[in-house]
């Protein structure tokens, strides 16, 4: 269905090609997963399939890309619209019309299909994707999962043979992500669609993939094959594969189900192992809220939340999209005034503080980290941050150098990788040394390596006495870094306790390792590895 013959891509003004010598054939009806680190060319590879590279992006394409026999050199993206459906990273950015039904019909209108055909296909697609109840609603008002399904539906109505998706679940909570992936699975199985998708969170998708394409980056050749074979020594791997490597299983398990079936002996070995050492917290109270109610108009977003954050702990805030996570962060940073109840940071009400004073008590990295940045180079950004925070010149640069070594200072912040941009924003916020640090969805777009780096950084900050609160959907990150988990649902705090106790029993928030080894409370492959070495030392 898709053939890439010795494909290479070089963008205009780039010193090195993004892709070289990619030879790949994806047969009809397969779900192919493209993995690799940030900047390894995943998006570029996806965009060559429907001709956006090079027709839209510019640059030079070497080799040939054939989709259903059509050569992308002679076919523009619009000429491939009836065989390739392409869904970009941000579904909202790709919506042309404003209601669900119109959005589904847009592609067909462009192709000039007859009114009867359009009507029938829209109805079929609404049913296929479970969107019938929201058919006449504006797309901006839908939940993230619904938006992503509308985006998929809007390219499905033209009956393409190939569906290309760029990180379809990166912005979704675990349940909404399951929902979208189940839909994709159904399309592959029932309609025989060929699906190519890129995704950082392998743990979510790898079990559905028939084939994995690994882009190692840095000019090394592309590898592809069965998921088990490729992931055996891949630098990026989901926790369940890492567990397989630790336990020495062969073939490697790809899903929780596979692992659970072979995990019996491992559970027995671990039963005698000492429980992993987890930090208990009990430092000075940095922030607290009691009976906190925050409303938008007549809609309460938080209905009486009571909790406290202590120095030296990393707390994860979890919950559905729209459950009130961001509102709690906003209340803590004074962007939202409490309707009733009390919120205090360092014994002060954050909403009453002037911005310059506020930054000494609480710092927040917003969801879009680059919102914090506005200078034209990394160096100037750091100088400006020193001035904003009124600290010794060089403080921010020093911090940034420690968090993200080896970045050239004259880079524009937008040219940094996702992870580097996050650490730059983090350094800017930390320059004022706030005892409370808030992060809103920090792992969006981060690859495994960048995530590991973030975990180390957050651990160090906690050691240094900061209280860290991060709102996230990423259950694996929570397992790695959080001491305590708050679960918020519909504005209420429904769980507040040590990570292991809260997540292990939860179907949505349990990390893969916990699911494999339940009822034992193991959270990460590292914990298991440490426990195994200690039992080996004891056993003989």
């Amino acid at each position, binding site marked *: 269905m898709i053939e890439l013959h010795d494909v290479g891509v070089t963008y205009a003004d780039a010193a090195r090609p993004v892709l070289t010598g990619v030879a790949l054939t994806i047969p009809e009806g397969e779900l192919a997963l493209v993995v690799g680190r940030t900047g390894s060319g995943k998006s570029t590879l996806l965009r060559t399939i*429907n001709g*956006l590279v090079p*027709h*839209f992006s510019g640059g030079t394409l070497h080799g040939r890309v054939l989709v259903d026999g059509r050569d992308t050199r002679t076919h*523009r*993206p*619009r*000429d*491939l*619209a009836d065989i390739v459906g*392409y869904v*970009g990273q*941000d579904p909202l*950015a*790709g919506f*042309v*019309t*404003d209601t669900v*039904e*119109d959005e589904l*019909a*847009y*592609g*067909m*209108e*462009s*192709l*000039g*299909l*007859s*009114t009867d055909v*359009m*009507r029938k296909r829209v109805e079929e697609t609404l049913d296929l994707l479970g969107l019938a*109840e929201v058919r*006449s609603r*504006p797309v901006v008002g839908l939940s993230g999962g619904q938006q992503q399904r509308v985006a998929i539906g*809007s*390219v499905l109505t*033209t009956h393409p043979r190939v569906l290309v998706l760029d990180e379809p679940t990166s912005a979704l909570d675990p349940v909404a992500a399951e929902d979208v992936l189940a839909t994709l699975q159904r399309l592959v199985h029932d309609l025989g669609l060929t699906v190519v998708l890129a995704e950082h969170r392998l743990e979510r998708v790898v079990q559905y993939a028939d084939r994995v394409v690994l882009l190692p980056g840095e000019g090394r050749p592309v590898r592809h094959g069965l998921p088990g074979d490729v992931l055996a020594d891949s630098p990026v791997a989901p926790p369940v594969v890492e567990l397989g490597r630790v336990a020495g299983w062969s073939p490697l398990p790809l899903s929780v189900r596979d692992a659970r079936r072979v995990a019996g002996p491992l559970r027995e070995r671990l039963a005698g192992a000492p429980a992993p050492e987890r930090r208990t917290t009990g430092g000075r109270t940095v922030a607290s809220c009691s009976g906190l109610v925050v409303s938008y108009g007549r809609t309460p977003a938080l209905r009486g939340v009571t909790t406290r954050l202590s120095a030296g702990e990393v707390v994860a805030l979890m919950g559905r999209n729209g459950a009130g996570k961001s509102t709690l962060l906003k209340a803590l*940073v004074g*962007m939202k005034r409490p309707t009733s109840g009390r919120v205090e940071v360092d014994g002060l009400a954050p909403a009453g503080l*002037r*911005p*310059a*004073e*506020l*930054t000494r008590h609480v*710092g927040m990295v*917003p969801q*879009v980290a*680059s*919102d*914090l940045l*506005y200078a034209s180079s990394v160096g100037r950004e750091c100088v400006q941050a020193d001035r*904003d*925070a009124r600290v010794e010149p060089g403080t921010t640069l020093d911090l940034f150098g420690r968090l993200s070594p080896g970045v050239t200072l004259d880079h524009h912040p*937008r040219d940094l990788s996702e992870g580097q941009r996050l650490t730059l924003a983090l350094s*800017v*916020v930390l320059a*004022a040394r706030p005892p409370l640090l808030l992060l809103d969805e920090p792992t969006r777009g981060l690859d495994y390596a960048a995530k590991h780096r973030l975990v180390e950084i957050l651990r160090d900050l906690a050691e240094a006495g900061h209280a860290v609160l991060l709102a996230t959907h990423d259950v694996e990150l929570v397992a790695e870094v959080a001491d305590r988990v708050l679960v918020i649902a519909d504005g209420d705090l429904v769980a507040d306790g040590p990570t292991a106790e809260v997540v292990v029993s939860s179907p949505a928030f349990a990390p893969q390792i916990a699911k494999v080894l339940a009822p034992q409370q193991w959270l990460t492959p590292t914990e298991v590895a440490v426990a195994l070495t200690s039992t080996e030392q004891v056993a003989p």
Partner: protein
Amino acid sequence: MRPEHLPTFPRSLHPGAWWLWAIGLAAAASRTQNPVPLLMIVAVTGFVVAARRGDAPWARSYVAFLKLSLVVIAMRILFQSLLSTGAQGPTVLFTLPSLPLPEDSGLKLGGVVSLEAVLRAFYEGLQLATILCCFGAANALGSARRLLRSVPSALYEIGVACVIALTFAPQLVGDAARIRAAHRLRGQSGGAGSLKRLAMPVLEGALERSVDLAAAMDARGYGRATDEGRVARRTTAVLVFGGLLGVCVGIYGLLDATASTWLGTPTLLMGLALAAVGLHLGGRRSGRTTYRPDPWALPEWLVAGSGVLAAVAVCVDVALHPASFFLASVTDLPPVPPLATVGILVGLLPAVLAPPLPVAGAPAGAPDAPDRVEVPA
């Protein structure tokens, strides 16, 4: 008879009909400064909006326009009192402290404020406010976006550009608010330079989104079926724009009483003909189709017709009795022109003639709610 022709069959009316109705009322308002017909027009728009608006976000725009009209009237009166040149009537209301200005500037600040000046300012402001209310009603009843869906396919590209602009404006506002909040996190409380810091990220974000949208549209087949010769494309463009220019000049000629007669109706008709030919040619080449086009049936004709009728009635009445529309003495009680009154009241009929909106989310098979009894006004 197709169900669309029934005024009782629940569906949303073609937005074009609402706009024609509103333009008719606005045209009527533009012909008079008599407060009686003006206030009647405001009441008519308000009543119809209350009767037939949906629950979509844009349906709330009428109130916004109403507030804007009040501001317009208030500003008009304020400036008249502060800056009027000389007293305009014998009835002095009060005297403000005045600021001496050079004689030859022709301006004065403060001084005597007369009842006549204030009333005239009120009537003039009311005229503009009424026209604003008409557009508010059009916006609330027929979404501008849905209207753009029914533009002729030759103007499709322009329609898409307008839709995207309509989407981007609120997104820019949202972005700006988000980035301002983020800058507060860096300890900045605004002041000099904050605009520049705000502008760069907002513009960068807008540019990125435009590129994303363009890629998505390209990937979904935008512009795929409209490949044809340059000559044909240019002919269409010249015809359409020449025609539209003719229409504009014609309308100007019609509305401006001092323009010569050939500038009015003949230019308008010629422009319309040219534009129609251009749109027809352009429509034939475009390979696009429209999903569920809004039907234009009997209720649309009735609603649009009632607006046109109101405009015609007022225009005819103005030609017959100009004195009752442009008041010689503003302090007298304004007269009630009978023909115009009847015409404007016809504009009230869409509250009944337009089909009711379907109730969203009503479960299928649920017992029907008793039909609302329509009581004619």
